[in-house]
């Protein structure tokens, strides 16, 4: 064997939430086994979720890091930035890195996250545009925001909406172009989305839902967009925020099975021996569907990272993954929206909503046929998302409390939580 090839016990590809949780979990059980972290990024670990706040200036770029150098030294972790995973040879337990080196591992965690999904719009490669996934993306976008007079944000997911709000606040005229019929679809229902839309309109943003861009071409301002209905838009700043796709090109030929993401079982193990996956690149069992789903959200990344780390270290305390539950929070123009669980009404289930025009409080709760909570959504109505997630995961029958619960999910949720925990 080539002596120059490095060996490690635990190789972790990626350096965000799932990877960091896996390190914690491994070190809980195995204090000494060598851990190597390889990542595409050139910085210390940070969260993609914080990047909109870097763009807005709320977060100082130097203060967003989730761990310092000392963390890796203390935990005996070799941290290797700018060394993305390039190819995986699972049958040989070997990972090939972008810098040309190779590492032989005993156990590998794929926590490589996701990258912006660029829609195949004709002409997109002829114009310059921004994306927002890495710190470098954020710094670039932040630099461009000040000079922008007319910005276009393609995609009304949470990343696009956050960026659009920042652009509005920076004084640009902003147009949000979204293919589907409402904003933030997949996170919030029509009523909530309309409230969000109104807040953006009140702030001066233009919203074009149900609009598909069919052509992009360079223009004097920067880029010219042509919509399906013939409308054209000029943009001096174009942000493409049409979603993300898992980072898994390195899998080609590796034998690790993947669909939309890397397929894993309830212990986050892939179809290959000694290879696990967690976080935004993984496709794990959905709590509601029972089938593998993409649930690329921060809280789930930490849960999956922990399960994977415990499984890799052989921790007997490991419990199988309970299944992915969508959990989202969204803060916009001083208001907030929280969504926990599935927006789909299950067969025989029931939907309860209330809306107070005075306070702008909106609540929607969905119950299964046997009285358990399956989803809860609020705008300007604060409740404990973590408690709600437990009510869902534990399938607690809320039938005797439903009326009180819908009236005050915060207090009643906490009551049930305390009784369940004691």
């Amino acid at each position: 064997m080539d002596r120059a090839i490095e060996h490690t016990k635990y190789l972790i590809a990626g350096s965000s939430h799932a990877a960091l949780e896996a390190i914690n979990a491994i070190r809980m059980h195995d204090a000494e086994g060598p851990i190597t972290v390889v990542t595409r990024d050139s910085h210390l670990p940070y969260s993609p979720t914080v990047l909109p706040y870097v763009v807005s200036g709320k977060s100082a770029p130097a203060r967003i890091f989730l761990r310092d150098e000392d963390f890796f030294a203390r935990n005996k972790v070799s941290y290797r930035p700018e060394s993305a995973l390039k190819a995986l040879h699972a049958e040989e337990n070997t990972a090939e890195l972008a810098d040309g080196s190779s590492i032989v591992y005993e156990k590998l965690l794929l926590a490589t996250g996701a990258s912006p999904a660029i829609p195949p719009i004709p002409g997109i490669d002829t114009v310059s545009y921004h994306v927002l996934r890495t710190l470098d993306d954020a710094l670039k976008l932040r630099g461009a925001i000040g000079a922008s007079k007319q910005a276009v944000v393609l995609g009304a997911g949470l990343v696009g909406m956050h960026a659009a709000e920042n652009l509005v606040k920076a004084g640009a005229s902003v147009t949000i172009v979204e293919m589907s019929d409402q904003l933030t679809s997949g996170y919030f229902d029509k009523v909530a989305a309309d409230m969000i839309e109104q807040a953006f309109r009140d702030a001066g943003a233009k919203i074009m839902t149900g609009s598909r861009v069919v052509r992009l071409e360079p223009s004097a301002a920067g880029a010219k967009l042509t919509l399906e209905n013939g409308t054209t838009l000029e943009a001096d700043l174009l942000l493409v925020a049409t979603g993300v796709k898992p980072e898994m090109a390195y899998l080609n030929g590796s034998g690790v099975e993947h669909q939309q993401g890397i397929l894993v079982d309830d212990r986050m193990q892939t179809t290959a021996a000694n290879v696990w996956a967690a976080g935004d690149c993984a496709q794990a069992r959905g709590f509601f569907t029972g089938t593998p789903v993409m649930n690329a959200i921060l809280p789930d990344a930490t849960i999956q990272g922990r399960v994977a780390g415990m499984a890799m270290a052989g921790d007997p305390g490991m419990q199988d993954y309970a299944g992915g539950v969508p959990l989202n929070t969204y803060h916009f123009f001083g208001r907030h929206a929280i969504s926990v669980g599935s927006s789909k009404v299950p067969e025989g289930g029931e939907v309860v909503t209330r809306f107070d025009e005075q306070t702008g409080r909106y609540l929607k709760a969905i119950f299964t046929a046997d009285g358990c909570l399956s989803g809860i959504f609020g705008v300007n109505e604060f409740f404990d998302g973590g408690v709600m997630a437990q009510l869902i995961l534990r399938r607690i029958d809320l039938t005797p409390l439903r009326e009180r619960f819908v009236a005050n999910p915060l207090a009643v949720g906490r009551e049930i939580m305390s009784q369940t925990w004691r």
Partner: protein
Amino acid sequence: MGRAYSTIAFDPAKCDGCGDCMTACAQAKTGTDDVARSRIQIYGREKDFELALCRQCADPKCVTVCPAGALNKDGTTGVIGWDASKCVDCLLCTVGCAYAGIALDETAGHVSKCDTCDGNPACVPACPHGALKYITTANIYNEVGDWEDLFAPGLAGCQGCNTELLMRHTLRRVGPDTVLATPPGCVPGMGSVGFNGTTGTKIPVFHPLLTNTAAMLAGIKRQYKRVGREVQALAIAGDGGASDVGFQSLSGAAERGEQMLFMVVDNEGYMNTGMQRSSCTPYGAWTSTTPVGETSRGKTQDAKNLPLIMVNHRCAYVATASTAYMEDLYEKLDKAILASKTGFAYLHVYSPCTTGWRFPSNLNMEVARKAVETNFVMLWEYTPQEGLHFTKSVDNPLPVTEYLKAMGRFRHLAPEQVEHIQKKVVENQKFVERMTEHAHVG
């Protein structure tokens, strides 16, 4: 090594939902009387009040899901701190926490959580019912953790046995200048006298006969005294070795006031050799020599009350203790060590036996606690100067069935046997209570 932290403890049985704690918190933290902004929240109606408060988790989920690095657990205080200058108001922490310990303060527009008021929480003194306490959980471990563990790592004990806890903590407390005697029983069986020519302790240890433990230890202590060396003489014996064949030498050493600490680990039988009955085995209990069959229904005699017999030796110190009440045990251990410098100190510790008493190995502390809560075991201490007094109240005990049903060795009991045991518990309690009444300066 990890440290034990201070924490706000809540006793729902004492809470009447008055909300004074919330007002105090709101005033301290927001300068208003708006209890909705309090970081401690009491929930419930009429009775059964519940608490939403940051638990300062050891493994905090709010920290792991924070994308901005705004939450951090302080390694010194254990408090999870929130850094307003890093927070981006995304509310993900409230999704991470399953205990509602961090929540949105709608007036402030940010999340807020308990910071224990830098170690002086305003809510605690505001509670008029004593339902809130600011306590350092397991604080004895902060101290003990720094002392040398004088027992070898790895023991041959049964799973769930509390004797390892007793041995390690007792040795840590007495320290390295100790000579240890461990007569035949579970303690040597677990490894105190070692295997293959090495001892299991890092101090001198010897293995006397069941019959002569106190006598041999007394001789060794006297010889050390003669040559001018101050050592702690310590015996850790089982109830069989102490109350049966070992009793004569134990009684003699106590009567002579030999300077030693004699600790009895009472598992109510000869558990190391196959679970035979001893004179400390309680009435009705199954053992291999008091079997349960067509005619036999377990032990037909009541247990000997060895610690009370030791009181009648007027020892320098006598106490009963339980590993379910470690703080109490530690205080008694300190007093016993001190008393053994000048006289005979006797410490009787109850040790539920997972194997011989037949209960699941995860329930040792629970069984020990139930024994005390039902007055089956009473915790008290005695000195000739102060007499005898309880260190844990014997008022309002649970019915003894709560204790009996926790294990298999009493499963066969007929109602009249249960009645007998309950009567005996009451009788014992009255007997010891009478001794506390007679407590007087001697």
